[in-house]
C-alpha cells in the first residue's frame, strides 16, 4: 500500500462518515421546519396569508432553477469539468441571492401585514424568516466553495465540500417545496 492510496482509503472512510453526518443533520433540521408547518396549520388552519401570487411563483422558480445549477456544478466537478463547475456555482449563488431579494426585499415589504399583525403575520414572517436564514447560510457556504474552487482545491476524486454544499442547498429547496404550497396555495386567503 503506497502512502497515497492509504490517504485515499482514509479519505473515503471519512467521506462516508461525513455523508451520514450531513444526512443526520438534515433530518434534525427538518424537525424545525416540521414544527413550523405544524404551527402554520395549528394557528391558521384552512386560511392562508394574503400574498402576492406572482412573486411567490417567481421566487419558487428561482430557487428551483438554482437547485438545477447546484446539481450541475456537482456533476461538473465529479467529472473534472472545472470551468463548468465554477460557472454553475456562481449562477447558483446569484440565484440564491435573488431569492433572498425576492422574499426579504419584496415580499416582506409588500405583504399587507407586519410581523405583529395577527397570527397570519406571525406565521408568515417566522416561516420565511427561518427559511431565509438557511438560504443565507447556504449562500455563504456557496461563497466559500466558489472561492476555494477558484483556487483549485477540488478535484473529481476529492470534493466533499462541494457535495455537502449541494446537499445542503437542495435541502433548503426541499423545505421550500413544502413551504410554498403551505404559504401561497393551500386554503383560502385570510381576511
Amino acid at each position, binding site marked *: 500500500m503506497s502512502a497515497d492510496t492509504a490517504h485515499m482509503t482514509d*479519505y*473515503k*472512510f*471519512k*467521506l*462516508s462518515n461525513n*455523508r*451520514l453526518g450531513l*444526512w443526520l443533520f438534515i433530518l434534525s433540521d427538518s424537525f424545525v421546519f416540521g414544527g413550523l408547518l405544524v404551527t402554520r396549520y395549528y394557528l391558521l388552519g384552512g386560511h392562508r396569508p394574503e400574498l402576492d*401570487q406572482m412573486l411567490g*411563483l417567481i421566487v*419558487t*422558480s428561482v430557487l*428551483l*432553477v438554482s*437547485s*438545477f445549477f*447546484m*446539481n*450541475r456544478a456537482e*456533476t461538473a466537478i*465529479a*467529472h473534472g*469539468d472545472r470551468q463548468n463547475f465554477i460557472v454553475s456555482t456562481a449562477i447558483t449563488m446569484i440565484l440564491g441571492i435573488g431569492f433572498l431579494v425576492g422574499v426579504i426585499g419584496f415580499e416582506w415589504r409588500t405583504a399587507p401585514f407586519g410581523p405583529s399583525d395577527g397570527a397570519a403575520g406571525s406565521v408568515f414572517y417566522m416561516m420565511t424568516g427561518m427559511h431565509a436564514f438557511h438560504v443565507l447560510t447556504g449562500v455563504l457556504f456557496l461563497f466559500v466553495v466558489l472561492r476555494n474552487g477558484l483556487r483549485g482545491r477540488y478535484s*473529481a*476524486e*476529492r*470534493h*466533499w465540500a462541494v*457535495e455537502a454544499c*449541494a*446537499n445542503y442547498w*437542495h*435541502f433548503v*429547496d*426541499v423545505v421550500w*417545496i*413544502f413551504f*410554498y*404550497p403551505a404559504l*401561497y*396555495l*393551500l*386554503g*383560502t386567503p385570510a381576511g
Partner: protein
Amino acid sequence: MDKNKGAAYTQGLITLVVLAVLTGAEYGIAVALPSLWVALIVIALIKAAIVIQFFMHIARVFREEGGHS
C-alpha cells in the same frame, strides 16, 4: 452517477423539467380547483422525493464504499 458526463447533465435537465411541470401543475390546481388540496400535498411530496433522489443522491449514504462516483 455511474454514467458518463453527458448522461449526468441530461439527467439533471430532465429533473428540472419535471419539477417545473409539477410546480406549474401545483399553481394551476390552486387557482382552478382549490378544493383539490390533497393533490397539492401529493405533488409536494413527489417533488421532494425527486429532489432527494436525483439531486441529493440519498442512495450514496447507504453505500458501504466511500468515494465520489
